[in-house]
């Protein structure tokens, strides 16, 4: 069995909105192996993004643990969490979330400047390589507003990968793109996966799920299959489809 890159156990998260508690995640567990691509399917509001934020050290769970590369995040200090976000995980969002004042190259290099990043000169080298690979070599000095949706998402991908993270967390990466552009982004993700990148993608798009190694479904605040796996039940085939 390959090494575990990411492991979550018993994750729970409740939002407190106007004196009303809204439980979003209840006892979610998940293991992601090195080089694996896991797709998490779920309806809107099912808690997919919340799960991704917990896995990426952007938020803290009310209960449960997350391990990334052997580090237990619930016991980590704020500074350690910052370093995990900078160096261990890379985020890709549905709406790209690029800084509008920075150019393509500057956006891509930004994580390299953070504590835990690879540093300015190495970051620049890697960003240039990634942008070249993503066919953005002639757009280095352009601002996000001058780019198409696909170009923006590829820039966001370059930014997510510049510090060579252990795992890429993608939140609806094609959700804001037309079918053709979305397919192109999926091709890029597939290429990255072939190169050994570990990825967790949350989506409601079956096309993405069809390319993943493993597909999980988030319903009622639980990840059905991995929760059962944690209990030792051998019923993965019920909700899991594994690519040959």
């Amino acid at each position, binding site marked *: 069995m390959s090494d575990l890159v990411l492991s979550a156990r018993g994750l729970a998260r409740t939002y407190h909105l106007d004196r009303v508690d809204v439980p979003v995640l209840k006892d979610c567990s998940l293991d992601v192996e090195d080089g694996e691509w896991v797709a998490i399917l779920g309806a809107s509001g099912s808690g997919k993004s919340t799960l991704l*934020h917990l896995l*990426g050290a*952007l*938020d803290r769970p009310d209960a449960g643990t997350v391990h990334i590369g052997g580090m237990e995040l619930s016991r980590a200090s*704020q*500074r350690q969490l*910052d*370093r*995990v*976000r*900078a*160096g261990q995980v890379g*985020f890709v*969002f549905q709406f790209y*979330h*690029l*800084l509008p*004042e*920075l150019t393509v190259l*500057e956006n891509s290099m*930004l*994580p390299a*400047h*953070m*504590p*835990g*990043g690879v540093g300015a000169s190495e970051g620049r080298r890697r960003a240039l390589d990634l942008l070249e690979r993503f066919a953005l070599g002639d757009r280095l000095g352009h601002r996000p507003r001058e780019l198409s949706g696909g170009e923006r998402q590829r820039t966001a991908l370059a*930014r997510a990968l510049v*510090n060579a993270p252990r795992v890429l967390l993608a939140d609806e990466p094609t959700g804001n793109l037309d079918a053709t552009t979305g397919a192109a982004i999926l091709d890029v993700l597939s290429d990255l996966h072939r190169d050994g990148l570990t990825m967790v993608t949350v989506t409601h798009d079956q096309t993405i799920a069809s390319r993943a190694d493993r597909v999980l479904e988030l319903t009622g605040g639980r990840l059905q299959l991995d929760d059962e796996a944690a209990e030792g039940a051998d019923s993965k085939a019920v909700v899991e489809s594994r690519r040959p």
Partner: protein
Amino acid sequence: MYQLLLTNRYLASRLTPLLAVAAVALCVALVIVVVSVMSGFLNMVQSSGRTLMGDVIISYPVRGIPYYDDLVERLEANEIVAAATPAIETWGLLRMPYPEGDAKESVKVQVWGIEPEGFAQVTSYLESLQWTKPPKEVIRHLLLDVIDSNANTLIAALDGPTRAALLQHTAPDSVAGMSADEIETLAVQLDNPAWDVRLRIVALEGVDAFRSTVNDAVWEAVVEVDPRLGPGTPTLEAGATLMRDGREGIVTGLHVSDANRRGSEGQTVIARDGYWWLPRFDVTLTTLPIDARGGILEPESISLPVANEYAAGVYLIDQTRVFVPIDLVQDITHLDEARLVDPDDPTTVIGTHPARATMVLVRGQDGVHPTQLRGVVDRIYDEFASAHGASFTPPPQRGLSPGLGIRTWEEQNASFIAPVQKERQLMQTLFSIIYVVCGALIVAIFWAIVYEKTRDIGILRSIGAPRSGIVMIFLLYGLVVSVLGSVAGVGLGWFVTTNVGSIHDGLSDPPLWPAWLLIGAGVALLAGGIITGRRRRMLPLLLGSYAMVACIAVAVGVILLRESGGMTIWDPSVYYFDEVPDQVDWREAITTAIGAVIASVIAASIPAARAADIDPVRALRYE
């Protein structure tokens, strides 16, 4: 460093930080202008006190100090005393040469009797003399004066060719077609009044035309009568010696004469195109002498030629003070030397009342503090008083003679300097509130920026930016904004302060072109607003309308101001000085700029802390 990169980009790409820069700049400029003008005013008060009366003043009004020559000698023998000079201060009436006719105007003047040479060593008297040479517009009048008083002498000096030239110059038609001999023959037949008129006609064309027309003998005669028309600086020398035309003269403050007024560029404008230039005329000085018992005697009058005018820059002094040779003032105030006769036998002289001076002004060597000098003067005065204590008219003694004062220039002017110092402190204290204003503006503007940048903050946190990094972005941003604002504020403050005189003159006599420019700009802005507003945008139309209304309102204000004769804010009769101080107080300017930077950075830390506290998950969802 990503904070620097983001600070730089945020500054360059948004209007909001420019508002913050403008807010800081205006606050800084406001303080610099106000404090610089106040400091300049205080400096003028202090420096004028010293340059007008020396470092230490011994004064004994009315009765005066006898044997003052001995006192001056004793003072000047001390190594820390640079010079000392006697003076008399009294009040008088000056009968002016204007207006035309017999009924002349009289003005109240403060008469200072001085020994000009010694007085110039103690004070900046020479530097304050207004006229080195007669002004251009006056020369014509001086020339006419010479022709008035010495026409026959000048006509006698005219040679044949000059007479012919004068005829050709003044009556070309009457000599047209004549040969040179015929013209000379005609010239011989003309009488003196005819030549007098011709000389005047040429003189009216100006001194250059006159000089090029007449022969050397005539010009030499002119310069002999009035050397001020010749080379050198006899006008200045007349002021420096208080002598004009071989007579003892008077130097009057520049604003004693109503004929002098300040022009729009600060120059002195003399009424009737130079005609009423006071050094052309004689004036009559009348004083009321006081006898030994303090009673008032018969008024004494003396006619004096005006040698020059004096501009100390202190309006109050320039409006009232006149300088006259000390011996003349002693005569008319009865402070001159007098013989004492036996009351029982008036033919028997029993002693002499020495001449007296009401003040002795002392200047210390460079670097000697006035307080130190006063201590030395005290001691020397005591020795002097005791040396003459047995004389028939002993000098007043310190501690025994009320009215005797030995004071530094600061003490002498304390009642004037202290309020100005307090006013400046008050201004500085009041205007330190500007830091609070500056800080509040920064908090408000930066709070809006943080709000606007919420999603950026979420993005930065998601890629690993620590909270301290977010704080640093906004602190750096605050630092850069405040430094830029302070530098711009210092520049603006410097510009306004150094041009405060021109701005003031512009308000006093506003030109019309800014009004037309503003109306044009207002119309252009409205047109721009309408054109942009046609694309269904409300804001440009609104801003264009407001800008037009503001421009036209200011333009109308300028026109009304002009129609109402301008606005004099700095009235010299109120503020003592005839010019607005225009030197930047750099120490205060730098302190203000640094204060604004500190206040801004402290203020920026509040929205910066809020930015750091933003939950990254919520920030990423922020639309």
